[in-house]
C-alpha cells in the first residue's frame, strides 16, 4: 500500500467506525438505517482499495442497495419509523415542529 492509499484507508476507517457507533446509539430507526448504509458504503470502498473488485461489487449491491431497501421497507410495514425523536431538535427546528401541531 502506498502512502496515499493509507490516508484514504484512514478516512474510511474513521467514517465506518463513527457511523457504526452512531447506528448503535441513535434512537431513531430511520437514522440507524442511514448510518448502516454509510458503513457498507465505506466497506465497499475499502474492498476496492484492497484490489478486490468482485467483493466490492457484491458489498455495494447487497450492503448499500438491498439491505437499506429491505430495512426501510420493513420499517414502513411495521410502522416503527418516526420523523424526529422529540427533544433532540435544535431551536431552529422547534418553531417548525410547533407549527406541525396545529396543522
Amino acid at each position, binding site marked *: 500500500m502506498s502512502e496515499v492509499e493509507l490516508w484514504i484507508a484512514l478516512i474510511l476507517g474513521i467514517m465506518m467506525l463513527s457511523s457504526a457507533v452512531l447506528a448503535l446509539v441513535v434512537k431513531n430507526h430511520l437514522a440507524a438505517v442511514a448510518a448502516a448504509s*454509510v458503513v457498507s458504503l465505506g466497506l*465497499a470502498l475499502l474492498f*476496492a*482499495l484492497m484490489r478486490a473488485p468482485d467483493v466490492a461489487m457484491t458489498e455495494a449491491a447487497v450492503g448499500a442497495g*438491498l439491505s*437499506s*431497501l429491505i430495512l426501510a*421497507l420493513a420499517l*414502513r410495514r411495521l410502522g416503527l419509523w418516526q420523523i*424526529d425523536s422529540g427533544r433532540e431538535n435544535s431551536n431552529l427546528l422547534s418553531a417548525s415542529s410547533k407549527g406541525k401541531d396545529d396543522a
Partner: protein
Amino acid sequence: MTLTLLEIVALGLLGAAVLLSLLRLILGPTAPDRVVAADTLAVITTSGLVIIAALLGSPLYLDVALIYGTLAFVGVVAIARTIEGNG
C-alpha cells in the same frame, strides 16, 4: 502512477468533504438530516470509487461505481417512501 501536487490537493479537499458530511451525519438534529447526509456521502463515494479506479489504474472498478450509483439511488427512494408513510 505518481501523483502531482494538484492531485494530492484534490484528494485532500475530497477527504475534507467526506469528513464534513460525516459530521452532519453524526450531529444532524433530526433523522431527515442524517438521511440527506447519507445520500450526499453516497454520491461522493460513487465518484470516490472512480478516483480509486484511476489510482489503481484498472477499469474494473468502474463497474463497482456504476452498480453503487444505481443501488444507492434505489436505497434513497426506499427511505423516502418510508418517510412518506402510507400515501
